[in-house]
């Protein structure tokens, strides 16, 4: 079944039908559920329907000087629902974390059409289990996220990017080491080789108050990172690479992991130990507690109408 509900009540009926007939749900288009339901700037919270695109949401939040501090690629196409299902992130995750850190409430349609809520609309809340964490990153395998409430933040006074070209990975490694032990608190620290130049490029991003950013730029410049930059490499890479592999390693092992890719194009989040590339790799899921995962799938989608994880 391909579902395109016009509202939430519609979706619950469609799911109940699918569940009853045991028919698999192939796709769900939540394009009709694209509203910002509530933005309380004084509470720094916002509630949205899952079909809203990230770009649309950011634009509306910005009218009151706020934003949801996540920045996955292709914000014009990417809906909040997809971001939540895939736990999508971008270069600023070093400074702000991932969407998991910002969801404070969620409404999910379960396989049988029932709607369940977890969390609420307040920034601190430990009533009941945190079901939200289960659905974030679950690739639609447990239920359909229809609404979410987020903590949002004030837009920073200033944001600035600088970069330096490193002749070799060894040179980059040394530089990263000295940046890590410096007093800098970058919101972005990326390494990439997608600009068509030799060697690799290290990009730093700073955000915050005017004075704070100014001070960091001058410190970075003393460490040799001083050419003006932007996040263009990021959009360019993800436009050219529709579904890259994602490798997650200890930050201290990042350079070695990059080296093993043998010069194919990559973008790496240095501080997080995450590398996007398109080399073929074996799966890294050794040691997952598969028993718990199977029981989870069984509890929430016993008839397997949703895709498996």
């Amino acid at each position, binding site marked *: 079944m391909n579902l395109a509900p016009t509202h939430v009540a519609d979706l619950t009926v469609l799911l109940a039908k699918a569940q009853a007939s045991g028919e698999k749900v192939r796709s769900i288009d939540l394009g009709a559920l694209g509203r910002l339901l509530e933005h309380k700037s004084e*509470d720094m919270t916002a509630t949205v329907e899952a079909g809203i695109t990230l770009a649309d949401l950011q634009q509306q939040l910005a009218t009151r000087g706020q934003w949801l501090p996540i920045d996955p690629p292709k914000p014009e196409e990417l809906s909040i629902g997809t971001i939540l299902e895939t736990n999508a992130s971008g270069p600023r995750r070093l400074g702000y974390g991932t969407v998991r850190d910002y969801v404070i409430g969620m409404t999910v349609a379960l396989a049988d059409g029932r709607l369940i809520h*977890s969390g609420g609309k*307040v920034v601190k809340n430990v009533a009941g*289990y945190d*079901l939200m964490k*289960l659905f974030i990153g679950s690739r639609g395998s447990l239920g359909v996220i229809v609404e979410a409430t987020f903590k949002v933040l004030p837009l920073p006074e200033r944001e600035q990017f600088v970069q330096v070209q490193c002749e070799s990975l060894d040179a980059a490694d040394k530089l990263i080491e000295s940046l890590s032990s410096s007093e800098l608190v970058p919101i972005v620290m990326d390494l990439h080789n997608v600009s068509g130049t030799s060697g690799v490029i290290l990009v730093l991003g700073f955000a915050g108050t005017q004075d704070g950013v100014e*001070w960091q730029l001058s410190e970075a410049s003393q460490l040799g990172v001083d050419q003006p930059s932007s996040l263009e490499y990021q959009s360019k890479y993800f436009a050219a690479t529709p579904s890259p592999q994602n490798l997650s390693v200890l930050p*201290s092992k990042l350079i070695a992991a990059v080296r093993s890719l043998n010069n194919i194009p990559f973008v790496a989040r240095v501080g997080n130990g*995450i590398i996007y590339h398109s080399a073929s790799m074996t799966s890294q899921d050794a040691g997952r507690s598969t028993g718990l995962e199977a029981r989870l799938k069984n509890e929430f989608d016993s008839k397997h109408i949703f895709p498996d994880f």
Partner: protein
Amino acid sequence: MRATISPDILKALLAIVGKGNVVSAQDELLVYECDAYTLEKSLPHAVVLPRTTEEVSKIVALCARENIPIIPRGAGTSLSGAVLAVTGGVMITMSRMNKILEIDYRNRRALVEAGCVNAWITNAVKAHGYLYAPDPSSQSACTIGGNVAMNSGGPHTLKYGVTTNHVLGVEMVLSDGEVVWLGAKPDGGEEPDGYDLRGAVIGSEGTFGIVTRVLVKLIKAPQAYKTLLGVFESVDDASQTVSDIIGAGIIPGAMEMMDQLITQAVEAAYQFGFPLDAGAVLIVELDGLSAGLEKQTEQIIKIAKQNRAREVRVAKTEQERLDLWKCRKRAFGAIGRLSPNFVTQDGVVPRSKVPEIMRFIRATSEKYGLRIPNVFHAGDGNIHPLVLYDERHADQVANAIAAGIDILQKCIDLGGSVTGEHGIGVEKIDFMEKQFTKDDLDGMRALRRVFDPENRCNPHKIFPGGKRCGDFTPRKQIAA
């Protein structure tokens, strides 16, 4: 409920953990009859103090075979009765598994045993310029395992978030004794494949199993702090200041409020120099890079003055800053000067509703004729009204309970929650049906079945419909 557990089971427990690590004598078990929530009490049948994950696993497997409830316990500082042995059972106390196992500055993480005390981590890493961010007021006693169970917060969660934002992975013993690792592994990247079961476990109040090791994030300590103390004529003015600071786009590390009653008690206990006649004091702590901090400090002073602050003091030395925080974090301990007994509530409202809930608390105080001082995380909208009563007067006990219920109901009505950081435990079970629908609760029950299908881990918590303790006689309160 069984009256005792058999000598054979005690013998088997002894064989697992060794002499001196099993408590079963009635008088010695009294220590474990409650946590910092003292309105309900019940004794476990036995308490065991394991030293290794393997021992925990064997204890849990034994209890599974014998169908005995298990109750995980850290330091027993829970304010919601989260570690109450409602129908007895074997209490597994993690206090001997308290080591910091590894500190990895390069990758900004530390591996600790669940019984490790929260403050020990920051103490161990601060010389290197790092800290562990969540800082509950009980941090000098409470354990990381307990923090994971309750998803604990603290004053600095305004900027830094709560436990779930700072725990990368956990080792856990499931209810059948199986040992699993959930989330990022000590030698692995931060984004493991699979479901975020780590995230599901954090805040599950010990009902999913027993966490034995925790991989925590370390963050760089801020380069500088500016800690301000604003003195206000009224709680309303102080609350408006909080809103205006956020409205100006400033996110301080913490914004904490104390009303007049609690300020007087804290001053009597710790002599910091708080004004005794002020309606409210507001502690605002800015942190981050030195550059830019001065300007934000001036902005905050200006906002406070616009809201009729009588004065705004800035801590001049690190010692003064630490003294101020000591007073704030020990505020509950000063209550003994005001009242023989108190019950702490832990409601949350949207930030902008703080003035409204504070007015409601004042009205509730008058309605029941009980004093209700307030010390709370104003920046998060997380209130902690302390309802004072004297257990020798039955009407006061009843009124204290009724006042708490009224306040928490009002939090729900204002779009908030009945607990921001203390948890549901046994205390707030009756509110679950008010805050969640039946379907919501069924979803939670489904998750519980995934981890603990036989309801053996910390039973009779969180969900309505369970057993309650018969003993409902409040006794002398210990300070949290």
